[in-house]
Protein backbone atom coordinates (compact mmCIF):
# COMPACT_ATOMS: atom_id res chain seq x y z
CA UNK A 1 0.00 0.00 0.00
CA UNK A 2 1.35 3.45 -0.93
CA UNK A 3 1.55 5.84 1.97
CA UNK A 4 2.59 9.41 1.39
CA UNK A 5 4.94 11.18 3.75
CA UNK A 6 3.84 14.52 5.16
CA UNK A 7 6.40 16.82 6.78
CA UNK A 8 4.85 18.71 9.69
CA UNK A 9 6.11 22.22 10.19
CA UNK A 10 6.47 23.71 13.69
CA UNK A 11 3.33 25.87 13.27
CA UNK A 12 1.18 22.76 13.03
CA UNK A 13 2.75 21.21 16.14
CA UNK A 14 2.40 24.49 18.06
CA UNK A 15 -1.31 24.66 17.19
CA UNK A 16 -1.81 21.03 18.25
CA UNK A 17 0.29 21.48 21.40
CA UNK A 18 -1.45 24.67 22.56
CA UNK A 19 -4.89 23.11 22.18
CA UNK A 20 -8.26 24.71 21.35
CA UNK A 21 -6.98 28.17 22.33
CA UNK A 22 -4.98 28.29 19.11
CA UNK A 23 -6.78 29.46 15.97
CA UNK A 24 -5.28 26.66 13.85
CA UNK A 25 -6.02 23.90 16.38
CA UNK A 26 -9.07 22.37 14.66
CA UNK A 27 -7.25 22.02 11.33
CA UNK A 28 -4.04 20.79 13.00
CA UNK A 29 -6.01 18.16 14.91
CA UNK A 30 -7.66 17.03 11.68
CA UNK A 31 -4.22 16.53 10.12
CA UNK A 32 -2.97 14.56 13.14
CA UNK A 33 -6.16 12.45 13.15
CA UNK A 34 -5.63 11.65 9.46
CA UNK A 35 -2.10 10.51 10.29
CA UNK A 36 -3.31 8.36 13.19
CA UNK A 37 -5.89 6.80 10.84
CA UNK A 38 -3.06 5.97 8.43
CA UNK A 39 -4.11 8.24 5.54
CA UNK A 40 -0.47 9.32 5.33
CA UNK A 41 2.65 9.13 7.49
CA UNK A 42 3.72 12.15 9.46
CA UNK A 43 7.32 13.33 9.56
CA UNK A 44 8.31 15.37 12.62
CA UNK A 45 11.83 16.75 12.76
CA UNK A 46 13.76 17.53 15.91
CA UNK A 47 14.10 21.04 14.47
CA UNK A 48 10.29 21.36 14.45
CA UNK A 49 10.14 20.16 18.04
CA UNK A 50 12.76 22.67 19.17
CA UNK A 51 10.96 25.51 17.44
CA UNK A 52 7.66 24.29 18.90
CA UNK A 53 9.05 24.37 22.44
CA UNK A 54 10.25 27.94 21.95
CA UNK A 55 6.97 29.15 20.44
CA UNK A 56 4.87 27.45 23.15
CA UNK A 57 6.88 29.34 25.81
CA UNK A 58 6.41 32.66 24.01
CA UNK A 59 2.71 32.18 23.24
CA UNK A 60 1.83 31.00 26.75
CA UNK A 61 3.60 34.01 28.24
CA UNK A 62 1.84 36.52 26.02
CA UNK A 63 -1.55 34.74 26.27
CA UNK A 64 -1.61 34.41 30.07
CA UNK A 65 -3.83 37.16 31.49
CA UNK A 66 -1.82 39.97 33.11
CA UNK A 67 -3.67 39.70 36.43
CA UNK A 68 -2.56 36.04 36.79
CA UNK A 69 1.11 37.07 36.61
CA UNK A 70 0.87 40.45 38.35
CA UNK A 71 0.78 39.20 41.94
CA UNK A 72 3.84 36.97 41.52
CA UNK A 73 7.51 37.73 42.00
CA UNK A 74 9.74 37.45 38.92
CA UNK A 75 10.98 34.03 40.07
CA UNK A 76 7.43 32.78 40.70
CA UNK A 77 6.32 34.04 37.27
CA UNK A 78 9.16 32.18 35.60
CA UNK A 79 8.41 29.01 37.58
CA UNK A 80 4.69 29.21 36.78
CA UNK A 81 5.22 29.72 33.04
CA UNK A 82 7.92 27.07 32.86
CA UNK A 83 5.60 24.54 34.50
CA UNK A 84 2.74 25.45 32.19
CA UNK A 85 4.78 25.36 28.98
CA UNK A 86 6.58 22.14 29.97
CA UNK A 87 3.22 20.51 30.68
CA UNK A 88 1.97 21.37 27.16
CA UNK A 89 5.24 20.31 25.54
CA UNK A 90 5.42 17.02 27.49
CA UNK A 91 1.88 16.13 26.40
CA UNK A 92 2.84 16.87 22.80
CA UNK A 93 5.98 14.71 23.04
CA UNK A 94 3.93 11.94 24.62
CA UNK A 95 1.45 11.99 21.73
CA UNK A 96 4.08 12.30 19.01
CA UNK A 97 6.27 9.49 20.38
CA UNK A 98 3.24 7.22 20.84
CA UNK A 99 2.35 7.79 17.19
CA UNK A 100 5.98 7.16 16.18
CA UNK A 101 6.09 3.92 18.16
CA UNK A 102 2.88 2.86 16.42
CA UNK A 103 4.76 3.62 13.13
CA UNK A 104 2.29 6.31 12.13
CA UNK A 105 4.95 9.01 12.30
CA UNK A 106 8.69 9.35 11.85
CA UNK A 107 10.80 11.49 14.13
CA UNK A 108 13.82 12.65 12.16
CA UNK A 109 17.06 14.51 12.74
CA UNK A 110 19.78 15.94 10.51
CA UNK A 111 21.91 12.84 11.23
CA UNK A 112 24.73 12.37 8.77
CA UNK A 113 23.92 15.53 6.81
CA UNK A 114 26.71 18.03 6.35
CA UNK A 115 25.59 21.26 8.00
CA UNK A 116 27.52 23.33 5.42
CA UNK A 117 25.49 21.64 2.70
CA UNK A 118 22.25 22.47 4.56
CA UNK A 119 23.24 26.14 4.84
CA UNK A 120 24.11 26.15 1.13
CA UNK A 121 20.61 24.91 0.30
CA UNK A 122 19.04 27.47 2.64
CA UNK A 123 21.04 30.24 1.00
CA UNK A 124 19.79 29.06 -2.40
CA UNK A 125 16.15 28.94 -1.23
CA UNK A 126 16.34 32.39 0.33
CA UNK A 127 17.97 33.91 -2.72
CA UNK A 128 15.36 32.35 -5.03
CA UNK A 129 12.36 33.42 -2.94
CA UNK A 130 11.59 37.00 -2.04
CA UNK A 131 8.54 37.26 0.25
CA UNK A 132 5.74 39.85 0.36
CA UNK A 133 5.63 43.45 1.53
CA UNK A 134 2.61 43.98 3.71
CA UNK A 135 1.05 47.10 5.18
CA UNK A 136 0.46 47.09 8.94
CA UNK A 137 -1.70 49.75 10.59
CA UNK A 138 -0.21 49.72 14.11
CA UNK A 139 3.05 49.41 16.00
CA UNK A 140 3.77 45.91 17.33
CA UNK A 141 5.41 47.29 20.48
CA UNK A 142 3.20 50.16 21.69
CA UNK A 143 0.07 48.95 19.81
CA UNK A 144 -0.66 52.53 18.73
CA UNK A 145 -1.65 53.51 15.21
CA UNK A 146 1.46 53.50 13.06
CA UNK A 147 1.10 52.61 9.39
CA UNK A 148 4.21 50.89 8.09
CA UNK A 149 5.31 48.20 5.66
CA UNK A 150 6.88 44.94 6.75
CA UNK A 151 8.66 42.16 4.93
CA UNK A 152 7.05 38.74 5.36
CA UNK A 153 8.92 35.87 3.82
CA UNK A 154 10.81 32.67 4.22
CA UNK A 155 13.34 32.65 7.06
CA UNK A 156 16.47 30.49 7.46
CA UNK A 157 14.78 28.02 9.84
CA UNK A 158 11.84 27.70 7.43
CA UNK A 159 14.32 26.96 4.65
CA UNK A 160 15.95 24.28 6.81
CA UNK A 161 12.56 22.61 7.31
CA UNK A 162 11.91 22.63 3.59
CA UNK A 163 15.37 21.32 2.79
CA UNK A 164 14.95 18.44 5.24
CA UNK A 165 11.53 17.59 3.80
CA UNK A 166 13.12 17.38 0.34
CA UNK A 167 15.96 15.19 1.55
CA UNK A 168 13.46 12.77 3.09
CA UNK A 169 11.43 12.63 -0.14
CA UNK A 170 8.29 13.90 1.59
CA UNK A 171 5.27 14.24 -0.68
CA UNK A 172 3.47 16.87 1.39
CA UNK A 173 4.61 19.83 3.43
CA UNK A 174 1.97 20.87 5.95
CA UNK A 175 2.33 24.28 7.55
CA UNK A 176 0.43 27.23 8.96
CA UNK A 177 2.89 29.72 7.45
CA UNK A 178 1.83 31.46 4.22
CA UNK A 179 5.50 32.13 3.34
CA UNK A 180 5.87 28.53 2.20
CA UNK A 181 3.17 28.80 -0.46
CA UNK A 182 5.75 30.14 -2.94
CA UNK A 183 7.67 26.88 -2.68
CA UNK A 184 4.79 24.71 -3.88
CA UNK A 185 6.27 22.46 -6.53
CA UNK A 186 8.05 19.18 -6.19
CA UNK A 187 6.65 18.87 -2.69
CA UNK A 188 2.99 19.82 -2.44
CA UNK A 189 2.79 22.62 0.13
CA UNK A 190 -0.42 22.65 2.11
CA UNK A 191 -1.05 25.80 4.16
CA UNK A 192 -3.77 25.02 6.71
Amino acid at each position, binding site marked *: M*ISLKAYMDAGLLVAYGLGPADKHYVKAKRVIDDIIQGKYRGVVS*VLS*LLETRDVIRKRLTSNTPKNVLDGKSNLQRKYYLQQES*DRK*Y*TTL*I*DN*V*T*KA*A*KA*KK*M*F*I*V*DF*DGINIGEVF*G*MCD*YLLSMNFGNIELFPFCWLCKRRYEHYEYKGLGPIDAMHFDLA*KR*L*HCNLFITTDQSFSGLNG*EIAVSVI
Partner: protein
Amino acid sequence: MTMAQMCEKVKFDLQMYYTFPFRAYERKHEHIIGLPSKAFTYELIGEQNIFEPIRGEVCTKEAPFRELNRIVAIERRFLDKPLEESSLKLCSKLRFSMGLSEQFEADGTALANLDGFMADLAGEGVDASELVKAARRRL
Protein backbone atom coordinates in the same frame (compact mmCIF):
# COMPACT_ATOMS: atom_id res chain seq x y z
CA MET B 1 39.77 24.62 -9.14
CA THR B 2 39.38 28.40 -9.04
CA MET B 3 36.82 30.13 -6.87
CA ALA B 4 34.71 31.02 -9.91
CA GLN B 5 34.73 27.38 -11.09
CA MET B 6 33.83 26.21 -7.60
CA CYS B 7 30.91 28.67 -7.46
CA GLU B 8 29.72 27.44 -10.85
CA LYS B 9 29.91 23.83 -9.65
CA VAL B 10 27.99 24.58 -6.43
CA LYS B 11 25.36 26.50 -8.41
CA PHE B 12 25.05 23.61 -10.83
CA ASP B 13 24.78 20.99 -8.04
CA LEU B 14 22.12 23.05 -6.31
CA GLN B 15 20.20 23.49 -9.54
CA MET B 16 20.37 19.76 -10.15
CA TYR B 17 19.18 19.02 -6.62
CA TYR B 18 16.27 21.41 -6.73
CA THR B 19 15.07 20.83 -10.24
CA PHE B 20 15.12 17.08 -10.20
CA PRO B 21 11.51 16.02 -10.63
CA PHE B 22 11.42 12.65 -8.87
CA ARG B 23 7.73 12.20 -9.64
CA ALA B 24 8.23 12.88 -13.34
CA TYR B 25 11.10 10.41 -13.30
CA GLU B 26 8.86 7.77 -11.77
CA ARG B 27 6.14 8.43 -14.32
CA LYS B 28 8.36 8.35 -17.37
CA HIS B 29 10.72 5.51 -16.60
CA GLU B 30 8.89 2.30 -16.21
CA HIS B 31 11.95 0.22 -16.95
CA ILE B 32 14.56 1.96 -14.87
CA ILE B 33 14.14 1.53 -11.16
CA GLY B 34 16.73 2.86 -8.82
CA LEU B 35 18.95 5.89 -9.06
CA PRO B 36 18.56 8.12 -12.12
CA SER B 37 21.28 7.94 -14.73
CA LYS B 38 23.53 10.94 -15.17
CA ALA B 39 22.34 11.33 -18.74
CA PHE B 40 18.72 11.51 -17.69
CA THR B 41 19.46 14.01 -14.93
CA TYR B 42 21.41 16.28 -17.27
CA GLU B 43 18.70 16.13 -19.88
CA LEU B 44 16.06 17.09 -17.34
CA ILE B 45 17.82 20.27 -16.38
CA GLY B 46 18.45 21.18 -19.99
CA GLU B 47 22.22 20.92 -19.83
CA GLN B 48 24.43 19.03 -22.25
CA ASN B 49 26.10 16.14 -20.47
CA ILE B 50 29.76 16.98 -20.66
CA PHE B 51 30.97 13.78 -19.02
CA GLU B 52 29.33 11.07 -21.10
CA PRO B 53 27.18 10.96 -24.21
CA ILE B 54 23.41 10.57 -23.84
CA ARG B 55 22.45 7.06 -24.89
CA GLY B 56 19.01 6.63 -26.38
CA GLU B 57 15.99 8.78 -25.77
CA VAL B 58 13.99 9.34 -22.65
CA CYS B 59 11.03 7.00 -22.45
CA THR B 60 7.83 9.06 -22.29
CA LYS B 61 5.42 6.18 -21.61
CA GLU B 62 3.24 6.47 -18.53
CA ALA B 63 4.24 3.91 -15.91
CA PRO B 64 1.43 1.54 -14.95
CA PHE B 65 0.11 1.76 -11.41
CA ARG B 66 1.69 -1.54 -10.30
CA GLU B 67 5.08 -0.25 -11.45
CA LEU B 68 4.63 2.93 -9.42
CA ASN B 69 3.68 0.77 -6.49
CA ARG B 70 6.90 -1.19 -6.92
CA ILE B 71 8.96 2.00 -7.05
CA VAL B 72 7.33 3.26 -3.88
CA ALA B 73 7.88 -0.11 -2.19
CA ILE B 74 11.58 0.02 -3.12
CA GLU B 75 11.83 3.63 -1.95
CA ARG B 76 10.20 2.67 1.34
CA ARG B 77 12.47 -0.32 1.86
CA PHE B 78 15.62 1.74 1.34
CA LEU B 79 14.53 5.00 2.89
CA ASP B 80 11.76 4.28 5.37
CA LYS B 81 13.34 1.30 7.12
CA PRO B 82 16.39 3.22 8.46
CA LEU B 83 14.06 6.15 9.16
CA GLU B 84 11.86 3.93 11.32
CA GLU B 85 14.87 2.69 13.27
CA SER B 86 16.33 6.14 13.91
CA SER B 87 12.82 7.43 14.70
CA LEU B 88 12.40 4.84 17.46
CA LYS B 89 15.79 5.79 18.94
CA LEU B 90 14.79 9.46 18.95
CA CYS B 91 11.48 8.51 20.60
CA SER B 92 13.36 6.97 23.52
CA LYS B 93 15.64 10.00 23.83
CA LEU B 94 12.73 12.45 23.77
CA ARG B 95 10.64 10.49 26.26
CA PHE B 96 13.62 10.23 28.59
CA SER B 97 14.40 13.96 28.34
CA MET B 98 10.79 14.88 29.15
CA GLY B 99 10.56 12.44 32.06
CA LEU B 100 8.14 10.10 30.30
CA SER B 101 8.36 6.40 30.98
CA GLU B 102 9.84 4.34 28.15
CA GLN B 103 6.96 1.89 28.40
CA PHE B 104 3.63 3.21 27.27
CA GLU B 105 1.61 4.51 30.16
CA ALA B 106 -2.08 3.71 30.33
CA ASP B 107 -3.98 5.77 27.81
CA GLY B 108 -6.25 8.11 29.78
CA THR B 109 -8.75 8.44 26.96
CA ALA B 110 -9.05 4.70 26.52
CA LEU B 111 -9.59 4.26 30.25
CA ALA B 112 -12.24 6.96 30.26
CA ASN B 113 -13.94 5.19 27.36
CA LEU B 114 -13.80 1.93 29.28
CA ASP B 115 -15.32 3.56 32.35
CA GLY B 116 -18.16 4.93 30.25
CA PHE B 117 -18.64 1.57 28.60
CA MET B 118 -18.80 -0.29 31.93
CA ALA B 119 -21.23 2.30 33.27
CA ASP B 120 -23.48 1.82 30.23
CA LEU B 121 -23.60 -1.91 30.75
CA ALA B 122 -23.91 -1.91 34.52
CA GLY B 123 -27.01 -3.70 35.74
CA GLU B 124 -27.97 -5.03 32.32
CA GLY B 125 -27.19 -8.66 33.16
CA VAL B 126 -24.35 -9.01 30.62
CA ASP B 127 -22.04 -12.02 30.89
CA ALA B 128 -18.74 -10.89 32.51
CA SER B 129 -16.48 -12.63 30.00
CA GLU B 130 -18.34 -11.01 27.11
CA LEU B 131 -17.95 -7.68 28.83
CA VAL B 132 -14.19 -8.13 29.13
CA LYS B 133 -13.92 -9.22 25.49
CA ALA B 134 -15.91 -6.22 24.35
CA ALA B 135 -13.80 -3.90 26.51
CA ARG B 136 -10.62 -5.35 25.01
CA ARG B 137 -11.95 -4.75 21.53
CA ARG B 138 -12.65 -1.14 22.42
CA LEU B 139 -9.16 -0.67 23.80
